[in-house]
């Protein structure tokens, strides 16, 4: 700790004199270590306005409206992909991001699919979308041999019906939820064929009566409190629930599973809006996140994998070895990455999603 302070001190002095004083960051909720911002402020003298969201759609709506006032936003790659051609972001000045050298080349190559040439964005964290359980409540209803490792838990009406009374939650994230359903049906998760969408809709309709709500962050506390017993969830968010449940110690034990049929793999990417008031500070913030110890600190706190190869040395070995966080090659091959949807398909998708949610 002391050593790292000494190393970064000259940088801090340099930065505080050269850079203006605030940076506005817009990131996913529950997605940063407790002390990350504090450390950044101490090191650079730049104060941080930190604001959070829980859906990609909201970020896009704010960016499209313009003058969002944010310097750094962190949309998922499959949204960023279509936002780049709209001119919503400015290209990164890589000379201000020396820590890019720390990145794992494999991840960098993967996200180039969303951001050709890695010109506009840097991966913040990455993870999967799978299933979170309240193990006790689920085994009580399904016995010891319930198909916990399968999406059948959500999509088989008989199983879902048994879990309805202890509560099933789903994400309010149409692109991913429909991709998951298509994958379960053996279809291409990135299909934009209306017939496939209809099939996904029918699948949801068959279990809709058993799903209590659609929300993209509520399930964290609800899983931890035993308010729901099954939730589609983002890997690290479910781990927060695991942690909170253990802390509360009220007999709730939560687990995260990447189902065998495959789950969606996503990369959340830091980018600088074209009209960012302080791109200078934004670069400083992104570069700071890429410090090995900072990346590792966030991973150790939020339990999402970071793209930082140099950070592995500082990541809790238990996390690094957990295949639900850093999936093995075999699991990785089974994951699918959602791609950007075309605007024309968007309306079909969101309309189908509203029908699924409301039963109308």
């Amino acid at each position: 700790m002391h050593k790292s302070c000494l190393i970064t001190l000259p940088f801090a002095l340099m930065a505080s004199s050269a850079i203006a004083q605030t940076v506005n960051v817009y990131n996913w909720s529950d997605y940063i270590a407790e002390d990350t911002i504090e450390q950044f402020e101490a090191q650079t003298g730049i104060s941080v306005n930190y604001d959070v969201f829980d859906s990609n759609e909201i970020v896009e709506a704010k960016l499209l409206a313009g003058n969002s006032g944010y310097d750094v936003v962190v949309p998922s790659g499959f949204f960023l992909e279509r936002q780049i051609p709209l001119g919503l972001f400015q290209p990164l000045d890589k000379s201000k991001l020396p820590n890019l050298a720390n990145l794992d080349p494999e991840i960098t190559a993967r996200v180039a699919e969303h951001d050709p040439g890695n010109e506009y964005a840097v991966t913040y964290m990455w993870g999967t979308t799978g299933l979170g359980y309240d193990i006790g409540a689920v085994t009580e209803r399904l016995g010891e041999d319930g198909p916990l490792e399968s999406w059948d838990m959500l999509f088989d009406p008989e199983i879902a019906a048994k879990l309805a009374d202890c509560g099933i939650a789903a994400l309010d994230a149409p692109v991913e939820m429909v991709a998951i359903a298509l994958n379960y049906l053996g279809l291409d998760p990135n299909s934009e064929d209306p017939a496939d969408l209809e099939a996904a809709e029918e699948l949801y309709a068959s279990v809709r009566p058993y799903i209590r709500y659609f929300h993209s962050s509520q399930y964290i506390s609800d899983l931890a409190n035993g308010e729901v017993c099954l939730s589609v969830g983002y890997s690290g968010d479910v781990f927060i629930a695991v942690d909170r449940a253990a802390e509360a110690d009220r007999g709730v034990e939560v687990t995260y599973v990447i189902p065998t049929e495959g789950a969606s793999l996503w990369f959340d990417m830091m980018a600088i809006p074209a009209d960012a008031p302080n791109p200078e500070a934004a670069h400083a913030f992104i570069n700071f996140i890429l410090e090995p110890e900072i990346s590792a600190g966030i991973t150790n706190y939020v339990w999402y994998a970071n793209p930082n190869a140099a950070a592995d040395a500082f990541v809790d070995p238990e996390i690094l070895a957990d295949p639900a966080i850093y999936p093995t090659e075999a699991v990785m091959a089974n994951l699918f990455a959602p791609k950007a949807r075309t605007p024309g398909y968007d309306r079909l998708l969101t309309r189908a999603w509203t029908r699924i949610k409301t039963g109308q």
Partner: protein
Amino acid sequence: MNAGRDRTARRPWGFLSGGLRRVGISGHAAVLLAPTLWLAIFFILPLLIVFKISLSAFALGRPPYLPMFEWAADESLSITLHFSNFLFLLRDTLYVNAYINSLRIAAISTIISLLIAFPMAWYIARSDEKYRNLLLMLVILPFWTSFLLRVYAWMGFLSRNGIINNILMALGITDQPLTMLQTEGAVFVGIVYTYLPFMVLPLYTTLVKLDQSLIEASADLGARPFTTFRTVILPLSMPGVIAGSMLVFIPAIGEFVIPALLGGAETLMIGRVLWDEFFANRDWPVASAVAIVMLVILLIPILLLNSAQNAVVEKDA
């Protein structure tokens, strides 16, 4: 008398009204100018902008719609009006259902509020003058904390591991926790709870002015209490009933926060549809069309309630 007239003549702002009169603006018009400007800038103008967006076409970009006016190369101005957004609302049952459902939820909430607020207002109006202000204060007291916080508090009450379920289970009334949160019932609870003071206050102001002797006269003439209520108290309190109903009904229709936090996904209300159009679909033109239609639909009950109020006032006069 003379001294008084002198004083008015020496009013320091006299020259101002004189000057305005010379350019043809009467004091009366000048007074109206401020609210008119306010209304124009903060109501009419935004409304026109929303209306304009509702007639343009969606395009992914910034801003996310196509321009309405365009200079063509031959120096002609082309104006493109897309009525498709409004037709779209008619064609898709989602929107019609959402409007109807919002009206229904708002109407039921208004009636429940009225049923709860009337006895409350009556009691406050009839209680000793010493306590009246205190009781009124208690009605207003919840406003001292954030509305959002109070709705969250209801989530704590209604959830499966919440206070109400814990009490019911401790008393042995139920052995399974009841699902109250994320239901339509929870939305009614939220709306009635939030807007109740808006119903109590106008009711109180009419009931407190109600002449006690009229009620006594009715009783002396042999009317039973219910007849007195129906033929004397209720008609006289109509202005309060109507004002309170408007104050509850109108905001309840467009309510977003309460159905979003307390209601389930199937509680379809126009506020949520509007949010989805704007934030999930990023389709500003359709979102604007939804807003315009909501305004038009709101105008009908407002006009009805207004004419009812005018009728009451005229009858009084």
